[in-house]
């Protein structure tokens, strides 16, 4: 099912809020580097080290893909080895283009690619260590998809992130029947001026303003910028949220029943 309505709107988004939000998306930087290998039959035909560039010395025959990725990860002391068979990506692209359906949204289309690639994991596409896959841009989409699927299908969601009692980033999201219809920010509330002395209590006036101007919020998520960054980098986000709620670093108010049971 689509997650983004065809007629979705994005307006009155405060540019700085949006930039701040996008810039919090964690991009994995590998300190030891990642080794990428291309292979055909049982021969590595190209090797590229993310910090050192092309490594012609690593090309040549190998026994099995799993053995070679494991050996090279250890020997080259890299964070991960990713090995892809020649022609796989072109094959995958053809496959998903053939499977595309007009009613799909972009997230569904990306899901097609994800499914195709997962089918190839361990066959024509190898990642070692396996958990490294969780750091890819691809898996970032999976997180977005998971997050959206966890939210109730009908929701007025308000996100407020604060930096020293200033709104550092905001997002107001309206979802109907599982599809995002509107993305906006506190800019839509103007000329409403939001005075914050303590965001932990004053966030309520923000919820009130959203109710008056737009619709009654059904979920609010408020935190500070530092906690938000930690949350995005956490491997166990639900546990992190539960802990941060206890210390008041994250406030969820109102809490939809569907969410309450999870946190």
């Amino acid at each position, binding site marked *: 099912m689509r997650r*983004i309505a065809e007629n979705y709107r994005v*307006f009155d988004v405060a540019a700085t809020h949006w930039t701040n939000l996008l810039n919090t998306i964690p991009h994995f930087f590998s300190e030891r580097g990642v080794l990428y290998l291309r292979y055909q039959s049982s021969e590595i035909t190209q090797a590229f080290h993310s910090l050192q560039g092309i490594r012609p010395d690593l090309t040549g025959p190998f026994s099995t893909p799993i053995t070679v990725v494991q050996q090279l990860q250890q020997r080259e002391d890299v964070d991960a080895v990713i090995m892809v068979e020649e022609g796989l990506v072109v094959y995958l692209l053809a496959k998903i283009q*053939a499977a595309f359906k007009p009613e799909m*949204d972009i997230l569904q289309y990306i899901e097609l690619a994800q499914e195709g690639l997962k089918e190839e994991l361990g066959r024509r596409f190898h990642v070692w260590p396996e958990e490294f896959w969780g750091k890819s*841009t*691809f898996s970032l989409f999976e997180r977005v998809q998971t997050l959206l699927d966890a939210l109730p299908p009908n929701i007025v969601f308000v996100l407020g992130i604060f930096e020293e009692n200033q709104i550092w980033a905001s997002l107001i999201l309206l979802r109907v029947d599982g599809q995002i219809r509107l993305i906006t920010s506190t800019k839509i509330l103007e000329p409403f001026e939001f005075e914050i002395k303590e965001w932990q209590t004053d966030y309520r006036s923000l919820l009130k303003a959203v109710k008056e101007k737009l619709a009654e919020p059904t979920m609010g998520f408020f935190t500070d910028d530092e906690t938000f960054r930690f949350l995005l980098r956490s491997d166990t986000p639900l546990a992190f949220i539960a802990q941060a709620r206890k210390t008041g670093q994250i406030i969820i108010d109102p809490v939809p029943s569907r969410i309450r049971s999870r946190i």
Partner: protein
Amino acid sequence: MEPISIADEVSSRVVQPLLKIEGNTIRVEGAQLPLYSGSIDYWQIPLENWSKVLDRIIGLGFRIISTAVPWNVHEVASDLFDFGTTDKQRDIEGFLTLCRQKGLYVTVRPGPCVNAELNYYGFPKRVLYDPEIQAVSAYGTKVIIPATPTPFPMPSYASEKFYDEVSKFFDAICPIFARHLTPAGPIIGVQIDNELPLLFMNGPFSADYSSHALRWYHEFLASKYPSIGALNRAYRTRYATFTDIEPPRALATTEREAIPRYLDWMEFQEYYVGLALSVLASLLWSRGIRGVITFHNTRSTFPSLPLNISKTEKELDLQGAGLYLKMPRYDELRRGALYLSTVSRLPFLAEGGMGTWPWGPSLTKSEQQFALVVALMHGIRGFNTHMLVNRNRWIGSPISESAAIDDQQYTFLKRFLTILGNLQLHTLQRNVPVILLRNFEYERLHALCKNNNWLTDLIDIPSELLLTNRTFSYTETIQKAYPALWNAFYWGLTSSKIPFGIGDTDMDRPALSQYQALFLPTFDFMSEDLQKKIVEYVVRGGTAIIGPEVPYLGSDMRGCTILSDSAKLQAPSSRRPLVGLHDPFTLKKDDVRVGNRVAGSMKAHGKGTFIYLGITLPPTLSRDDAVDAENVVSQSLKHLKLAPVGDVQNPSVDEVYWGTRSPQVIFLLNPTNEPQSVSVKVAQRNLLRDGWTGEQLPQRGPQEIALNAYDFRIFEVVR
């Protein structure tokens, strides 16, 4: 209406006189107008705010606006159009009239592709799902554009039915445009389509294999080769007719003899883009849209093939570029500006990004301002602020739909336009004695050997991994060696501070002859025409710096030694030792040495000079590792006695001096994330006035100027 014949449409269009472009301006109603404009999409701005918003634009100092006129906004049912009769929001005629009343000129963007963050990029969905219209991939599938929110199948721009459909929209909209062309109305330009090379985004064999495109392919081959016999000679085949030829669907060769067929397939994609634009321009022309500037846009600042500016500017007046780059990608921006300002009729950013689409690069306001200044610094002379006015699915414009302003962006733009006006930057030239050429023959080979696409980007697979390392029996892997040497030349020239432009091998000989020296990486093959062009350039007095091979094959991979025969150039038997760090590299006449690590030669030919560099340089990825490259570049240009411009003591700072006899405007820019200082060279009697603040520096003559990270200064030289 009778079916459109594409051939008839194109041949009936008389090439428009380019009277409207003069220097770096447009002559409109007797005035010379710099091409500074801003985007506003009337159909998304509440009708009641049109006037207020336009007043805000005028308040900034703009005289021109640009507006998309999307097909799927105006087509309310199949072949039924509304231009304001049922919904005033679609009243394009009213909008144009209002612009005229307010003294604004307009460039319109009727597509057929406009993007504008619209569903289906402005195409009606019914058109995209017509099987007769769809582009086809090498595997016989549709070519899906991964757009947000809804991906869609790309149309084939070779489909006659596609143009039949476009014609219906143009039949409806063009009478309105025609009534509002300058001088009767405000329209001075038309952007034709948007980012057309998107069709080829998925690699060399991504598109278009529809039957319509194959007809174009065969026409292209027939136009390139005088006979099927000539093609068979090049391809080593025995085709009876051009229509027998099947296009390649994958790179299935390791032999260089097969390469001509593949290179033709890559060149065909450039032909495809050019022809599609030409047909669209003809459709507009035949409907009365004449005497205005026509242009196209590509998203990239430094466009890669199949976007070939020489080809698109044969069909249209201008080929614009986009500008959405963060500060650390400064050099991509600089290359784009240097390239456009060399090859384009009027170097123009059709999308000078202010704000962004929601899923685009998260540029800060400072980054957007920085990019615009950099573009103008390096030679861009026209820009369209995109979007000047916010709309649905766009974030961060200087003006909102309700005419509220973003203080920081609005103030910057207002000041910037004032400065450009005060400095008259569009009238200034500079001396550029050297040109670095992009060799399109090798860039086609490079594009052919790439296999990255939007999916590989998503999986984070680096494009370097997917570049094939087949040598095709050439002396080395050209698709890797060419960009490496080109980059070395680029960084060497940058560090030398000798002003240079970036051009390409499609430039004609007279255009090349404006430069005293050209740098051109050359490998085993080079077309006969290009070899002749370079020889002619040298005969007439130019210095051509070539290497590391002297081409011995033509583009058909048969013997072609025009260049080596003319110049008596020969590669040394033991060639191309690596020039080590700080090795002396001094070229003397006829010098070709290997033992003492100089492998080059300098030969007088006609009135000019050939310099053959039989060397490989170490990887040069930035100005920090350009020591050897700079050494080679400086030695190669030594006989021309070209003076560097600016402070050679600090190669990290970029300086551009505008003004041919003496500097009139000086740009200084620190592209690093560390503070820098630079000595500005001006005559003892001259003063510097800060273009931004208007303050005059207290001392006359040379000045030491400090720059913070990613900082820039613009100075006017006051005599």
